[in-house]
């Protein structure tokens, strides 16, 4: 179970948009139709492969309710990626995105990759937010965008993996300081930081060769 990198994710967004369901679908390949309120924060993990490398994703699924907001804020700083989720069948969850984004930007490290997710794409008949609107919002704020369905599993894998790819690319570009664990990235146990073929500490634009391992 060794890995090249470990990324920490958080999932944020209004209550009931399907954050926990996305996580459950991703880690367990299951769908839980009954809404069970998340209390505080729950943890999940899975291994993925990018560019032939094993990458471990550690995901903290946060409670969407306002009451937990101050608690969940504690998780922004240490995360490398965030999935910002809204519900395409509830306009207000889309309207709240700006608040979420401000909050995330304010408390996280500036390099955190944020993926915007319009969930419940299976409920086309009840759609209230057009796909174009999501795309426009993402473009405006420099986010990656995807519509998913935690129920049918459509795009769920992709959402998590694309976020990881984005982070991975940033590492390759030397944007992330991978030796600072506060960034939500860890190098695998066998990949010591002294390994010359990995982007070194603080070496922005350093060695970009990814042919190792």
């Amino acid at each position, binding site marked *: 179970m060794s890995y090249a990198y470990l990324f920490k994710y958080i999932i944020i967004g209004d209550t009931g948009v399907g954050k926990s369901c996305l996580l459950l679908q991703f880690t367990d390949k299951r769908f839980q139709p009954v809404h069970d309120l998340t209390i*505080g924060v729950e943890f999940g993990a899975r291994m993925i492969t990018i560019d032939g490398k094993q990458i471990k994703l550690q995901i903290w699924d946060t409670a969407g309710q306002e009451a937990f907001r101050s608690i969940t804020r504690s998780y922004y*700083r240490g995360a490398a990626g965030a999935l910002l989720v809204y519900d395409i069948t509830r306009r207000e969850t889309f309207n709240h995105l700006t608040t979420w984004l401000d909050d995330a930007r304010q408390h996280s490290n500036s390099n955190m990759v944020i993926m915007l997710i319009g969930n419940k794409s299976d409920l086309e008949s009840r759609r209230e937010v057009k796909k174009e609107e999501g795309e426009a919002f993402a473009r405006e704020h420099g986010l990656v965008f995807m519509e998913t369905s935690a129920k049918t599993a459509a795009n769920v894998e992709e959402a998590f993996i694309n976020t990881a790819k984005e982070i991975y690319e940033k590492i390759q570009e030397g944007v992330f300081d991978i030796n600072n*664990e506060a960034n939500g990235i860890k190098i695998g146990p066998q990949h010591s930081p002294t390994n010359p073929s990995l982007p070194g500490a603080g070496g922005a634009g350093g060695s970009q060769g990814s042919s190792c391992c």
Partner: protein
Amino acid sequence: MEYFRSGLKSVLGTPAPGTQPTGAETVERLVSRVSTSTLLEDRRDACRALKALSRKYRLEVGAQGMDVLRQVLELDRSDCEIIGYCLDTLCNITSKEVFEEEHESNINMKVNVGEQFTEMFIKNTENVTLVLSFLEEYDFRVRWPAVKLLTSLLASKPKEIQDIILVSPMGVSKLMDLLVESREVIRNDALLLLINLTKSNANIQKIVAFENAFDRLFDVIREEGFTDGGIVVEDCMLLMLNLLKNNTSNINFFKEGSYVQKLAPMFVLPDNIEEIGWSPQKVSNMHCVLQLVRTLVSPNNPVQIVTSCQKTMRNANLLEALCDILMASGVPADILTETINTVGEVIRGNLTNQEYFANVMAPSNPPRPAIVVLLMSMVNEKQPFSLRCAVLYCFQCFLFKNEIGQEQVVQTLLPSSTNSALTTGQLLCGGLFSNDCLSNWFSSVALSHTLIENPAQREQLLRVLLATNLGAQPVSLLHQCSVYLQHTTKLQAKIGILMLLAMWMSHCSQAVQIFLNVPGAMAFLTAQTSASEYDNNEEILQGLCAFIMGLCVAFNDNSVQNYSKENLSQLIEKRVGTETYCKKLGEISRHEVYAKAAKQPQIKAKHSSELLLEFEFCKLFKALEPVVIKALGVQRDLSNGMSELSLSEHENALLLQYKELIRDQDKKLQDLQKNLNNMHRENQDLKAQIEELRQTNSQLHDQNTLLKAQMQLSTGTTAVNEPCDKIQQLEAELVEKDAELERIRKDQDDLLELLTDQDTKLNTFKNRLKELGETIDDADSEDNNSLGSDNEM
């Protein structure tokens, strides 16, 4: 002390000769100096003096100085020295501990003065945030007292401080950064602070874990030399325990983060451990590590997590390491006990791990399976009580959901087994009938666990024969148990055997049959159950006997002549009485021993006399108590002179009848439900209609009133208008008439004037005529003239 005095003198100036200022006065002057002095040096000196006085005159300093100290923290934060004094002073006055100096000065001091000052200080949550911010200051004089102050506040008001830190931005992060602090005293104090902070607060526990606590802690543990390290290792383990206990999310994180593997070096014992021995600290550290392992695989955790943790532990060779400790020599008894418990929970319900454990061999001569060696300790009077309990628990865990293991144990007792070596079965049988009643109890319970949810082994165990005396007929194990039950005088042994019998006879009519054939068995049960007085836990014994009697009814196949279902229930009714019977049965679950045992699978008893009931038996009892009562109830209803055959037939017929009835009722119920639904819907519709009508009605009503109002308004104005018009008309007419009248009057005046003129003229002419000599009839002429003049007009 002299130093302080001289310091005080320099701050306060020399006191007036002959008068010694009281403590309160001194504090007052110092406080005013801190708040009014413009020179930083003066404020600093005053703060230093306050700090020195804050133990002896805690009340005074706290009451007068709290606000000033708070101000200093805000305004003088660039000066590390004064901040350090302030924090230290606050730490002293909010401390829970009662200082020695205090006693000298104020004997009847209130006990919780520190708590009150804490409350005052944290009332403004900003203050805590302020103290947290001092953690970022690298200067030792600030950072260390800040940690100590937080610890002190936390000790007095844990919940409040937890809540404040939880919502203050980066609060936990700042604390976590202290774990990489190079100055060990700060790191160690921060560790203690975090231990207290994470107590029973899942949210903080999760954030601390998220902030890489496990990595940091394992780093510290490694630096300190794993279990050979000092108390810091123990503190690290305690913090980890806090983070994991009952926190599924963190356990999952711990497992997924490959931290289980990092535990492995903790179990490595040096080769020369026997020579160097176990230091008390190593024992403590080891205890914590074992606790940690148990927290991960605790039977209270969700099964999914337990199973995957168990698997990880096997793959990381933790199970192997644990078994090594189990078989090592020179291990202190309490560590050995805890290791046995831990091994139990690591294998509990996990077939692969159970198989691994079954194959562990002890390095004895001849080599024996570890299980056998452990059981030897269990049935050995000389072993410590807690160790024997642990062995039983471990053995139970080994058999839990392990049909193969159950079969293997029973197999060792069967006649076919030719193994001459000491076996588990032999040990248990030996224990069952030994003179040590605790061994009886342990062995009964252990043996009963080979039968849990395993009907095949219940029947297999019936085949076990024992050679009692040389040359005598071998008797069955069940028979021997029943005989022993009647002979032994020890309560613990009786209860143990009864629990074994209960497990054996439940859902096994063959066992019931054999039991009923044991001479005196039934009489013994009846006597116990109908006994009216008891002392010292004997109510449990009576309850158990009642339970066994009930099982004999419920799982009776009517193959024993004198003890058919019917006979037995009549026996109970006549000899014991149904009410008494139920009362005795109820005694079991009412007893505190039952509640205690049913709580968790592990046997938790401090003293051997507390061992009476056991977890799995409680489960069995809970499931079968209603069955037993029902069996008796049904029997009683049907015992109205019916023979056995017709009984079952009748039963069948009755059953069918009832089924029919139920089906009918079900159908009716459904129909009614449907009707009800329809009614509901209709009702709803009608309600909606009514509502609609009501609305239109009110609308109409509104419109009506509106119209009415309008109408009234309009008619009102016309009515008023008409006379008005008339009046105007009349007024106009009046004016017209007035004008006319005026004109006529004027005309009349003119005419009158004219008439007077004419009259004058006429008179003139008359006079002339008279002068001219004309005679004129005065009167006539006058009249005619006037008449004529009128006509002219």
